[in-house]
């Protein structure tokens, strides 16, 4: 389809570390690469878990204070059930199982796919300092640790969009 003002580049910001927040960024980023767009994925604050080696494949989804969460069968999950030990792990395991069925890979593999297609992964300087992380704690796919200014520099250009997931 011919578009008058096509998107040529997307810069995605992920600031949260739950399964759904991280996967929103990864699916949009991978989709961009698959469409031939330039893609920058910028991780900050709790989103850092998605690019931290020993955490990225152990993400959870929140079961307390998540009013959209439903039990198998479609009934709303009462928030109080969320405090039962193991509920968060169980729900997260279910989510990952459903995604696997759709051929959505674990985070580490997703980063492999995105970078194989030329997508770039960046970490936020403030978050690295705040969480006392070192470059070696982060995925080898992280190309640089950026300041906000540097992020804006590489996010610019014609047909460029910044998306905060």
């Amino acid at each position, binding site marked *: 389809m011919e578009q008058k003002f096509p998107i040529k580049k997307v810069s995605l910001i992920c600031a949260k570390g739950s399964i759904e927040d991280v996967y929103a960024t990864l699916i949009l980023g991978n989709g961009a690469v698959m469409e031939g767009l330039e893609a920058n994925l910028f991780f900050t604050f709790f989103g850092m878990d998605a690019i931290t080696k020993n955490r990225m494949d152990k993400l959870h989804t929140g079961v307390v204070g998540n009013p959209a969460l439903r039990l198998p069968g479609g009934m709303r999950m009462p928030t109080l059930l969320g405090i039962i030990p193991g509920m968060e792990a169980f729900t997260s395991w279910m989510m990952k199982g459903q995604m696997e069925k759709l051929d959505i890979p674990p985070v580490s593999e997703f980063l492999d796919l995105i970078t*194989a297609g030329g997508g770039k992964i960046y970490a936020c300087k403030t978050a690295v300092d705040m969480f006392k992380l070192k470059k070696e704690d982060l995925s080898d796919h992280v190309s640089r640790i950026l300041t906000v200014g540097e992020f804006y520099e590489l996010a610019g250009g014609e047909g460029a969009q910044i998306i905060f997931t």
Partner: protein
Amino acid sequence: MAQKTYADVKVDVNEEGYFTNPSQWTKEIAVEIAKEEGIVLTGQHYAIMEFLRNRFNGGEALSIRSINHSGVIDVKTFYQLFPGAPLKKATKIAGIPKPASCV
């Protein structure tokens, strides 16, 4: 439904140029579609297209991840073989419908 002529054969395609009848596809046709996309086909191209066609014929969904598990080529090579939008280009040249998947 639109028709296009490749290698002196009339084939049925949709408005985006994807085959609506994959059985009309031949390797000679693939060469001409590839030319339209600016790609010169090699053995590696044919090998991964065969994988895609087999998977499509088997009713399995096509995803970028499945390429890595194909045992034919890895994803990085796939992006190099079909620059730009690899899965879209590869399925078009392989004469199968555009994948309806976000991954």
